[in-house]
């Protein structure tokens, strides 16, 4: 929908912002409340990018709100600077710098630890504002006397000194902030942020420097927050020290949650509800001291009954309405993939050029693509792999088998640099990759599909494949914040090609969460393929499949094997032996034997140590 009408959201927002002053007062909103909602909404856009899109729950936004606001206020009250817009941007930049420094520390951890570090850092900022810097910040008194916004045009200066004229100023900046954020979420970076939210490890494994993107969005959120802080000072004529308090961070989280995270508009809506309730309970209903009790109860009820916030509730209602309307049309695409799946081998063979789109090096080269020497991995006292020597030639199909606990997955993890070996060396295409990161080796063309699906569950098949393809097309880190996804050259082709390879073309716009298991398995392989690897590792690609699905997947793997180098782990030896040219057998963390499938089948050691013991499991 967004693709077809690129400016629909922007235009509707502009209309709403223009209409608001004519409509909202009739609903009991005062002009200052409306202005406040815009400030919180603007700050919320940044927070939503961080939390709703990237999944980073920060309780430390007060640090940036206060810093940006205080800096702007200080410039306007204590220095000759009079241009409020310059002051706003200076505050924004300072907040961004602070955000960068805080991000360097806080982003070392995730989840609850990340949240706690942000709380701690924000508390330290409050203290610093309150005590050591009180000469500049006014301590507990804050900075009074902040001028109202103005716009210097050279020949004249426009003053935004009444509530409604300030509304124009704030609404303009809200609109600018929203347009920027919309561009951002539609950009490749925006897609990667959601990838990080859904599955950071896989995003990293697909060749993206997720730490870099997290830091970038953290800084962006800090800048939005700092800008909003500056606006607060101008709106009130006073920059309060409260901006630094934990309550500020808490409120933005609450408002975003009420409104709905991951929507950009959620925080605005949440702020409107929150501030409206504040006004209503206190100044309209005159509840006195018990207003907060009522607010608390209302809030708990909202959280209990609105699962994805107000925007989520509205979206659900909308879906319910539209589903009823064109229910018949919706049913249709569902059976299609079932048909496709059962006739899978046919279209796979029909693919004209299965060669990878990007890196074609594998085809023309000969010799060894991968050499591992003396690879050892110890976990505490347990040795998972010991002294493995392993080489693979260009264009080879290699199988790895071994009983459970033989160290196959650990071995793969070392080859893809997910875990560093305790000792040993890995050389890929003539380059020592032993100490590289997982995203670096993916960029070099070595990647893996996982034993347990590692997909981006909340995104569509197309978006999943795009995340994988972007790694190769854009490199590990690039801040193309304002480029649209469709503007990435070669992306659509790569997605289309990969989708047809793994037979998911008809499901491109389906969310992953709605896929059947077999489809998810194929997408898992597709993600690895879309990075155009020159060496592809497949960790039990047939795991958990029905016999029918196995037949199809083997055919699929055969077709994609042309022109690629692949290493496959699997327990299904019949299928594996059908696929590969050579087999390596691991036992208890070491190489037992290597040879062609025929040799392995007939090898006495293998039969004794492996085949005999796990007959039951293989069935």
């Amino acid at each position, binding site marked *: 929908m967004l693709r077809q009408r690129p400016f629909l959201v922007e235009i509707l927002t502009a209309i709403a912002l223009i209409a608001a002053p004519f409509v909202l007062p009739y609903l009991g909103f005062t002009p200052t409340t409306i202005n406040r909602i815009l400030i919180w909404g603007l700050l919320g856009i940044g927070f939503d990018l961080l939390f709703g899109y990237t999944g980073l729950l920060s309780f430390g936004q007060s640090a940036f709100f206060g810093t940006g606001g205080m800096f702007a206020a200080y410039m306007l009250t204590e220095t000759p600077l009079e241009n409020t817009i310059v002051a706003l941007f200076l505050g924004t930049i300072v907040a961004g710098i602070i955000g960068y420094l805080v991000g360097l520390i806080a982003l070392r951890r995730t989840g609850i630890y990340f949240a706690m570090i942000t709380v701690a850092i924000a508390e330290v900022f409050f203290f610093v504002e309150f005590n050591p810097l009180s000469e500049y910040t006014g301590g507990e008194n804050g900075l009074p006397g902040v001028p109202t916004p103005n716009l210097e045009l050279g020949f004249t200066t426009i003053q935004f000194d009444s509530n409604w004229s300030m509304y124009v100023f704030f609404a303009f900046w809200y609109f600018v902030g929203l347009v920027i954020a919309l561009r951002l979420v539609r950009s490749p970076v925006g897609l990667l942020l959601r990838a990080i939210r859904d599955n950071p490890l896989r995003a990293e494994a697909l060749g993206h420097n997720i730490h870099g993107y997290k830091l970038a969005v953290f800084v962006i959120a800090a800048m939005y927050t700092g800008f909003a802080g500056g606006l607060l000072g101008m709106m009130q004529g006073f920059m309060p020290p409260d901006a630094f308090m934990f309550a500020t961070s808490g409120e933005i989280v609450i408002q975003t949650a009420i409104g709905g995270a991951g929507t950009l508009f959620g925080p605005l809506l949440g702020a409107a509800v929150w501030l409206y309730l504040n006004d209503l309970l206190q100044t309209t209903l005159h509840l006195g001291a018990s207003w907060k009790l009522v607010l608390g*109860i209302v809030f708990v009820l909202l959280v209990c009954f609105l*699962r994805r916030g107000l925007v989520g509730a509205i979206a659900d209602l909308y879906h319910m309405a539209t589903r009823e309307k064109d229910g018949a049309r919706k049913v249709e695409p569902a059976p299609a993939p079932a048909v496709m799946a059962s006739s899978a081998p046919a279209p796979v063979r029909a693919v004209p050029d299965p060669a990878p789109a990007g890196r074609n090096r594998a085809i023309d080269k000969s010799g060894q693509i991968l050499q591992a020497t003396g690879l050892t991995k110890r976990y505490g006292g347990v040795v998972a792999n010991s002294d493995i020597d392993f080489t693979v030639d260009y264009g080879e199909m290699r199988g790895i088998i071994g009983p459970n606990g033989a160290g196959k997955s650990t071995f793969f993890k070392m080859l893809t640099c997910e875990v560093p070996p305790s000792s040993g060396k890995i050389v890929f295409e003539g380059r020592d990759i032993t100490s590289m990161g997982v995203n670096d080796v993916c960029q070099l063309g070595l990647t893996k599909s996982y034993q347990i699906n590692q997909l981006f569950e909340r995104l569509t098949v197309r978006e999943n494949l795009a995340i994988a393809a972007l790694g190769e097309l854009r490199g590990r880190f690039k801040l193309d914040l304002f480029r649209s996804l469709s503007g990435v050259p070669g992306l659509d082709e790569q997605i289309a090609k990969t989708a047809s390879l793994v037979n998911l073309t008809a499901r491109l716009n389906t969310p992953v969460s709605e896929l059947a298991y077999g489809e998810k398995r194929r997408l898992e392989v597709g993600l690895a393929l879309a990075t155009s690897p020159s060496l592809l590792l497949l960790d039990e690609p047939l795991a958990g499949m029905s016999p029918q699905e196995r037949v199809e997947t083997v055919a699929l793997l055969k077709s994609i094997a042309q022109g690629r180098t692949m290493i496959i782990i699997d327990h299904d030896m019949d299928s594996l032996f059908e696929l590969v040219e050579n087999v390596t057998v691991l036992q208890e963390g070491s190489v037992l034997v290597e040879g062609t499938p025929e040799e392995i089948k007939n090898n006495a050691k293998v039969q004794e140590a492996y085949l005999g013991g796990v007959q039951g499991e293989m069935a």
Partner: protein
Amino acid sequence: MVNWANFISQCFNGLVLGALLAVISSGLTIIYGTLGVLNLAHGAMFMLGGYAGWLAYTYSGSFIVALAAGSLFVMLVGVVTERLIIRHFYSRPPEDQLLVTFGLGIVFVEGVRFFFGSLSKTTPPPALFQGITDLGFMFYPTYRLAALGIVAIALLVLYYVLYKTRIGMIVRAGIEDSVMVDSLGIDVYKIFMLVFGIGAMAAGFAGIVNAPVVSIAPDVGEAILVQTFVVVVIGGVGSFPGAIIGGLIAGEIISITSMFNPAYSYVMLFVAMTLVLVLRPHGLLGTAGRE
């Protein structure tokens, strides 16, 4: 102000404060470890304990009765809260759990204000522990010494429950691997309800023990909540021994810093926490399981 007598005294203060933080934090940490819910209403539970104890004391005149009645009341509040509200949030994103417990915290605090007003209430210490004790190097309020003992006993009881009883085993197993417990055929929901109750009770108990030291007001739990988080993070989320060590470390940091410059004591606490997190990702005694 830096001299030996003062240093030892401050270490002692840190011990008393730390022991109190340890009890509250162990409640928070077992709830988080088992249920995966970070209970932002934990400070309110602490406060509720203080008020329940004060009320029981007002009617009975006995500190022991206050301690027992207050603890049981908060446990009941915890169990009911879990059953009616928290239970519906296990399948929801962590931020929803934060929000609902945050909201419940507001409701508890403002509910108490509604019924009991904003003026602070004082529960006197039991007659046995009134007055001041000469420790040789300093004079110390007798009740604080007693509180140290009461808290130590409480921690021992909690240790016994967690490590020596079947319920405790299940709880600890749940902290390590909740899926496993699930597959053992144990009614996980019952365990969760109990754990939430016990965790709340720990906070409530601490609230009563603290009431003769710091007179209670509706907001009494607010400041303690953030400190409790710091303790849990330093010690390692989900770790009972971690909560105790974290509590003592936090208490000592606050007390010893205040000897040099009181204004920096909380900053030092946060600096320490950040350092721990940067150097030891999962806290001093935490496991990699929960994030």
